[in-house]
């Protein structure tokens, strides 16, 4: 137990000591008693009598001392704090696909961790690891995308609960901090924690790119030519470009974690588009002309025309995905011969989700690690306003205050 205002306790102890001293120093006159007549009582000098401490006197003294101590203890505001540590750490360990080598993460966690610290492993979800776990076995790399926002939220919650048991709580983030792990909410979530976050960088995995593409198309197909020119044509690969409608066998093949690009030929003359904008924020521009085909609308668009309509969609299928491409290069022109088309093909052949594992800018790292500018609020200040015990102590003091006059009256009657 600790006291939020211990000076009150010292004051109460001093006051109780004074009460004890007065109780034994004060000499009491013998009780005045009516007597039928004092005619026969000889006039004699009063003699001080030795005060015998009667049990009722001690009881009254104890009640008075207890009353003063209860009031002092109530104002001193006791709080029950079982085993408060000076410092506790919450370690957020990245185990997503952005991490190149999990051994780096395990080493970093082991270096930062002490007894009683909490480790939270995260990718797209978070999991608090048991205190006695072996990090090397618990921290296994996953293929899911990492989410720093989810990790921070889980970390802040744990840190709040640790504040009752530690004077200071630190947060450590062990992660390569790939671009794809941050989102639009990350900054706002970071602002919820008013202290610093220590960043421990580990090696990031390389962004996976297409390493080979199967082609289900005739030899004179222009897209096949473009894939060949890009040096990606393979007999078997994890990505397959199909120019005709996929069969059930193709879809089964996709479900095993592969990528199927359905790139149909334009069967009729349609509008042409001058360029295709692919990738995050449409940063991959592929000049046309392309024959435009409809692929429908939805939240799974990954490439657009200049007018904003969807040009390519990606939909998950089992462990893999299917990309519907609505941009036919046609059979005339040199679109497929350009380097931009090779970049487009390489991009379309990338693994599902288009992981962007490139590291974030240094400014983002700094913003993530530094504490928000609110120096008046400390992260490690425990809640000092509430002391539930104080209410009970005041109640006890009120009961003593009510009983003390009764004990005093009883003593007077006993003397009478």
């Amino acid at each position, binding site marked *: 137990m600790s006291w939020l205002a211990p000076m009150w306790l010292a004051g109460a102890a001093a006051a109780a000591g004074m009460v004890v001293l007065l109780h034994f120093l004060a000499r009491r006159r013998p009780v005045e008693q009516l*007597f*039928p007549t*004092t005619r026969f*009582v000889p006039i*004699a000098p009063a003699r001080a009598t030795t005060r015998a401490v009667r049990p009722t006197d001690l009881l009254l003294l104890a009640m008075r001392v207890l009353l003063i101590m209860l009031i002092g203890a109530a104002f001193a505001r006791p709080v029950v704090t079982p085993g408060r540590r000076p410092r506790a750490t919450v370690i957020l360990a990245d185990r997503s696909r952005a991490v190149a080598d999990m051994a780096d993460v395990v080493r970093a966690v082991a270096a930062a961790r002490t007894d009683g610290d909490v480790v939270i492993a995260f990718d797209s979800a978070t999991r608090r690891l048991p205190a006695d776990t072996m990090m090397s076995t618990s921290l296994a790399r996953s293929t899911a995308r990492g989410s720093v926002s989810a990790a921070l939220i889980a970390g802040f919650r744990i840190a709040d609960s640790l504040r009752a048991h530690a004077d200071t709580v630190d947060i450590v983030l062990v992660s390569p901090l790939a671009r794809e792990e941050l989102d639009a909410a990350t900054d706002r979530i970071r602002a919820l924690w008013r202290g610093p976050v220590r960043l421990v960088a580990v090696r990031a995995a390389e962004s996976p790119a297409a390493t080979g593409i199967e082609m289900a198309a005739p030899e004179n197909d222009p897209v096949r030519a473009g894939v060949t020119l890009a040096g990606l044509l393979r007999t078997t690969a994890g990505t397959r470009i199909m120019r005709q409608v996929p069969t059930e066998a193709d879809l089964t093949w996709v479900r095993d974690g592969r990528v199927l690009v359905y790139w149909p030929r334009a069967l009729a003359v349609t509008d042409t588009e001058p360029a295709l904008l692919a990738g995050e924020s449409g940063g991959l521009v592929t000049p046309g002309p392309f024959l435009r085909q409809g692929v429908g609308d939805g939240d799974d668009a990954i490439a657009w025309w200049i007018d904003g309509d969807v040009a390519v969609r990606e939909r998950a299928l089992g462990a893999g995905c299917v990309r519907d491409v609505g941009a036919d290069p046609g059979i005339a022109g040199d679109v497929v011969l350009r380097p931009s088309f090779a970049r487009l093909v390489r991009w379309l052949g990338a693994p599902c989700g288009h992981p962007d594992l490139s590291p974030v800018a240094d400014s983002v790292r700094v913003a993530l690690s530094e504490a928000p500018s609110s120096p008046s609020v400390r992260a490690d200040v425990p809640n000092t306003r509430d002391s539930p015990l104080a209410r009970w102590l005041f109640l006890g003091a009120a009961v003593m205050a009510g009983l003390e006059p009764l004990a005093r009256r009883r003593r007077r009657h006993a003397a009478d």
Partner: protein
Amino acid sequence: MDQELGALLDAVRGLQWPVRRPVHGGIAGTHHSRLRGTAPELAEYRLYRQGDEARRIDWKLLARSDRAYIRLAPDRATLRTAIVLDASASMAFPRPANDKWRMARQLAVGLSAVAHAGGDPVGLVVGTDPVQRLAPRSRRGVIHAIAALLERVQPQGTASLAPALAGVAGIPRVAVITDFLSDDDAILRWARTHAVAGGIPHLIHVVAPEEVSPPPTAMTAVDPENPTEIRPFDERVRASYIARFAEWRDGLARRAREAGAVYVQISSDEAPARAVGRVVSPASAAA
């Protein structure tokens, strides 16, 4: 009337309060009168004189002696009685039960009942300020009236008994119930005067055991009739007090008897019926 007094009245039923000498005549009663009358008991004969009632002539004696004698027997008369009660503050002891006052009240009612049962008119005088009186009467209900009056009285103040005693002049039997702590000399003077005048003064001295032998705890004694009188009371003072109080009581008893009064000391823890019996007993009158 409360249960306590009711039980007392039951207990004293049958008691008599005889006098040790004949009283002046008057209304027929239970006491021997100084007058010779026509009571059935034979006292003496005298020669018939002109004017005597012929039916009082003892005809058998006439036949034997040829002289006319009439029979004389002692007459019986009533004895007016007054109970004088001290209601000063010293009677309220020990607090809070006020045992002395309770005993005095019970003695007053008990003695009144005994006197009334004997056909004697009985009255009450309470030494309050002003004095409260009930004139002696023998009608039914006088005991209740006495009890009711005493119910309303609380012992307090320093009123002397002298005004109360002045109000009982002419009443032959007067029982003064007091603790003698207010004005013992005045009471004894009155008793002497009353006895000389042919009255029968009874002085009933009520004491409390705590007064005779106070408990051995240190205290500061305060006189209720004089609150400025405060005396420390410890163990060594206690021994001296007991001796002085006993000496005073013995002296009082002697002076009371010398004055011609019937003196009885009653302790407040005594059974009230027994106390009444001691007062009315001929042994106490003879002592």
